């Protein structure tokens, strides 16, 4: 009987401690993040109540945005499209520009990482162009293309170049000499070393560069669209502000934020899928 009691006590302790862990998990994944958002909403609400003329309260903003939220893909004539369409237009520009950027930046990163003369030739160029706001390229792009859409894509392309080049070069140049020695002992030709050893070894770095590039590209597209106009979430922000419709701007801020988060998450998933596994530190 005492054994039974002991077992029951242990079971109760185990149950209690499991309940405690579950409680902590709920707290860490649901309660605390929700509290953060609640704080921001309360701050917004407070400011809006103190200065009624300044901005709508969250509740008013939600009500006036209901049409946008419930019908994201409406088409009510040329130029009058739901935010879903605007978002897709912006995403299209970002993905085309980012994709072209990656296609150019990854090989350049390999050249810079593998060849010292290339590094010496290209590093100053990269260091000078990297701190330039991508928006400064917009007038040049407009002069070249004479059209808003290709110019926006070009700016995103330029934006995507630098972090990807720098991180790829870093990854390529820091491939462990041990791996290279294995390839050399196996008499692997240089081009096959690039494909079978250097590329897989530097994939984590390449993806870091791509994630940074995509993040900045998503930041930049909003500003670019404000300047170029046309269809897109960035122009939506500017357009609604011109109509003094601040509620929709708040909506756009949330949409842009959530989309950026999803883009980064998708990039992370792509990395896990391509590299098959989490990056290891050995």
């Amino acid at each position, binding site marked *: 009987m005492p054994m039974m009691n002991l077992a029951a006590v242990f079971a109760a302790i185990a149950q209690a401690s499991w309940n405690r862990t579950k409680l902590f998990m709920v707290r860490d994944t649901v309660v605390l993040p929700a509290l953060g958002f609640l704080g921001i909403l309360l701050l917004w609400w407070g400011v809006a109540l103190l200065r009624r003329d300044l901005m709508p309260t969250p509740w008013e903003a939600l009500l006036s945005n209901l049409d946008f939220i419930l019908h994201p893909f409406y088409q009510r004539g040329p130029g009058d499209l739901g935010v879903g369409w605007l978002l897709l237009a912006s995403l299209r520009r970002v993905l085309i520009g980012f994709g072209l950027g990656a296609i150019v930046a990854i090989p350049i990163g390999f050249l810079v990482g593998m060849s010292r003369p290339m590094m010496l030739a290209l590093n100053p160029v990269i260091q000078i162009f990297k701190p330039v706001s991508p928006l400064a390229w917009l007038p040049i792009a407009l002069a070249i293309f004479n059209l808003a859409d290709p110019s926006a894509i070009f700016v995103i392309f330029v934006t995507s170049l630098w972090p990807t080049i720098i991180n790829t070069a870093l990854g390529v140049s820091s491939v*462990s000499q041990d791996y290279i*020695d*294995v390839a*050399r*002992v*196996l*008499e692997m030709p240089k081009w096959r070393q690039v494909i079978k*050893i250097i590329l897989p070894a530097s994939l984590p770095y390449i993806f870091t560069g791509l994630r940074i590039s995509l993040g900045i590209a998503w930041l930049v597209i909003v500003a670019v669209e404000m300047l170029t106009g046309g269809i897109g979430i960035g122009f939506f922000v500017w357009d609604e502000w011109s109509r003094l419709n601040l509620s929709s701007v708040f909506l756009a801020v949330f949409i842009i934020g959530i989309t950026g988060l999803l883009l980064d998450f998708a990039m992370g998933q792509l990395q896990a899928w391509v590299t*098959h596994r989490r990056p290891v530190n*050995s």
Partner: protein
Amino acid sequence: MVKSSLQTNGIHGDRSTPTEFLVIENLTKSYRNPDGSEFVVLDNISLTVQENEFVSLIGHSGCGKSTLLKMVAGLERPTSGLLTLEGKAIRKPGAERMMVFQHYSLLPWLTVRENIRLAVDEVLDRASHAEKSQIVNEHLAMVNLTAAANKYPDEISGGMKQRVGIARALAIRPKMLLMDEPFGALDALTRGKLQREVLNIWEANRQAVMMVTHDVDEALYMSDRIVMLTNGPHAQIGEILEVPFPHPRDRATLREDPLYYELRNHVLNFLDQHFGD
């Protein structure tokens, strides 16, 4: 290019005699210091290794024994002197002189099987797909890794990683096996077990082996000759010790042999004598 690791005595005797397999002649390796002076690591090393001989290089850390092995591998170039394998000068790395690396050097994005397969694909490029698979499977079985074949290097222990390194080296059928402190990063129990396994494989299939070590017992247990290097800089071969115990060797029997302790003390005395000079 592909040649069986089994004995092939007497087939190649063009320039050197058949037993002189690897020849190292007056080998010197030096680096240039930043101030322009010369830093001599290895000074005038001469050594021959026979084609079915297990040779150990022993010496204090920094004496250049790994550098010597890397020059035989072709990963580093000698400053002066001559290195030949079967009469042909060694100028670059080659799969005929396969390395087993101290820190395993497995590619972390490939599974155990894929790591071995990569080497087989690269070197035995004329073999058919089925032959290659069979070679990989044979060598996985040889080092008892069949069950772990689809694991990634970070999912297996150090001893298992080095088994992969050994299987990868043997799978491409090198003429000579170079091992750079192959058991140095393993715990004592795993080390003893793996020494036994490697010796078993070697005793069944003798070939030229050069192993760098700083473990006197390991050198005595495994090798036919122990090459003792003096301390660097200007490291030279201080002495070469013949280990007369016949193969196959048994550790327990060796431990009962007074000669074993005599040789052991001899090597230890050599190392003590050259400590810090």
